[in-house]
């Protein structure tokens, strides 16, 4: 019997581990390393209506136990994602969670409507938290009413459940979670990156061409744990947790905080095998900790 299978709205996961959006492209690169069907799900790179080039380089800068990125939602656009990437991914037995982004409300609605029709897209991840684009992104993710209304509009057109990706760059994350719950969200994914900066010692100027970027990696894990801990007690929605996950132990900690599945981001860049390694190690860790099934861990910190 599997200790790892999890059922969430739209998602029958053989295990609760998936690469996070923006850290795995559309899977092609990592398919060189292992069979993508091993994964619980794949959160593909954000998709917008039209192709986007993204920000000028440098797009990454390192920080203590973390990294800043300002890619700027580079992607080939809805049409190509549907015809080339999603169809390529359909050879694998793995549900896809499509990350949906845009500049205007109607962009989100258009992408959600079309991409949710793809047979292997089992859920959407509404990206209202990208800190690296001038319009859209985080602009939708910091005002509760705006996030609620956008969620509602996307829910109206989506053929699959909608998870909303929350930004940690807000005063009150619980309020945001409640707002998107009121808008009809089926689940939450959290946290997106924290806005940060790094300056060059010699020039005194920002290293990133975009000046600011999103902080990810082990450095942000405590923030993610705290926010999931708070939000999971305040809403009824399942949470896919993310933020600095690099080991099976981290996954259990996210479950304890209140998550029902976990996404791995930055760690993929360091170790391309990190997801299958965690999937392999989890049953042993659960055994060691005395759990029959990973679902017993969810919310243990406050239950």
């Amino acid at each position, binding site marked *: 019997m599997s200790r790892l299978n999890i059922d969430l709205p739209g998602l029958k996961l053989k295990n609760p581990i998936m690469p996070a959006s923006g850290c795995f492209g559309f899977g092609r*690169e990592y398919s*060189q390393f292992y069979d993508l069907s091993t994964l619980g799900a794949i959160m593909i790179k954000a998709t917008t209506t039209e*192709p986007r080039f993204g920000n000028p380089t440098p797009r990454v800068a*390192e920080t203590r136990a973390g*990294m800043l990125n300002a890619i700027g939602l580079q992607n*080939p656009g809805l049409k190509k994602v549907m015809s080339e990437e999603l169809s390529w991914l359909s050879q694998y037995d793995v549900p896809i969670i499509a990350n949906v982004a845009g500049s205007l409300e109607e962009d989100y609605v258009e992408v959600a409507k079309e991409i949710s029709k793809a047979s292997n897209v089992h859920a959407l991840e509404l990206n209202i938290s990208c800190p690296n684009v001038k319009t859209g992104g985080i602009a939708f993710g910091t005002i509760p009413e705006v996030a609620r209304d956008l969620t509602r509009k996307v829910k109206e057109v989506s053929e699959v459940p909608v998870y909303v990706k929350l930004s940690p760059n807000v005063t009150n994350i619980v309020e945001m979670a409640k707002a998107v719950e009121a808008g009809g969200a089926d689940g939450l994914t959290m946290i997106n990156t924290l806005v940060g900066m790094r300056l060059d010692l010699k020039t005194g100027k920002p290293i990133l061409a975009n000046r600011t970027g999103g902080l990810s990696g082990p450095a942000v894990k405590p923030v993610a744990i705290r926010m999931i801990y708070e939000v999971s007690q305040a809403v009824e929605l399942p949470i896919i947790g993310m933020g600095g996950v690099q080991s099976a132990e981290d996954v259990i900690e996210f479950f304890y905080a209140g998550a029902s599945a976990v996404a791995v981001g930055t760690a993929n860049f360091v170790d391309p095998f990190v997801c299958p390694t965690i999937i392999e190690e989890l049953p042993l860790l659960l055994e060691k900790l005395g759990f029959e099934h990973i679902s017993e861990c969810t919310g243990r910190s406050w239950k």
Partner: protein
Amino acid sequence: MIKKELCKILQHKEIAKDIYELTVAGELVDEINEPGQFVHIRVTDSWDPVLRRPISISSYDKKRKQLTMIYRKDGQGTSLLSQMAPGMELDILGPLGNGFPVSEVSIAETALLVGGGIGVPPLYELSNQLTAKGVKVIHVLGFQTESAVFYENEFSKNGETFVATVDGSYGAKGFVTDIMKDLSFDCIYTCGPTPMLKAIEQGYSNKRLFLSLEERMGCGVGACFACVCKSGEDPNGTSYKKVCSDGPVFRAGEVML
């Protein structure tokens, strides 16, 4: 195929000021296709720094399964790397990217290899392979100052080698482009700082020209979109090339410098 392997350090020494030569043994050497490819090195098991370090391969020996890299100790990552001793194991992902096409020059022709600073190393294996093929090679190597000069003798064994330093403390004073003016050749292979690559691309649009780019990288395998540049045919559009997986070597005009 790209491998992730713990490779044993065989040799590690400083060959010029802050310039280190590092030789390791590993099965992944079997997978190297061309000179100019690189590897991605994890310099610490702790998560500080988080990312791997992209380092170009300066030479390799398939029979002995060894590869040599030359890097400059500059930031935190390369400082940590410089402290690792022979006998220790190094977590290497590679080989990555596409290198210099050796087949682009034929035996009767002359290839000019132009390197700037830490862009010099990948040209060494290229020089060896071109020489072995019977191509005449000329090298132009540029450095900041005398203490930063390395591999002049190694290159000289394969062909005529000119050295320039910016401050004039060794070789000719000035830039590699000053020396190139007086040479005749059929094809250029170059690696170095972007302003140097730009100057060469502008000055030699009539030649076969291959440039190796450097960019800050995340994953090194094409997934994170950190090291993207605009495609040459579509300078204002959304077409792109990834330095890590489409490059780092490009034909002149293929990308916007």
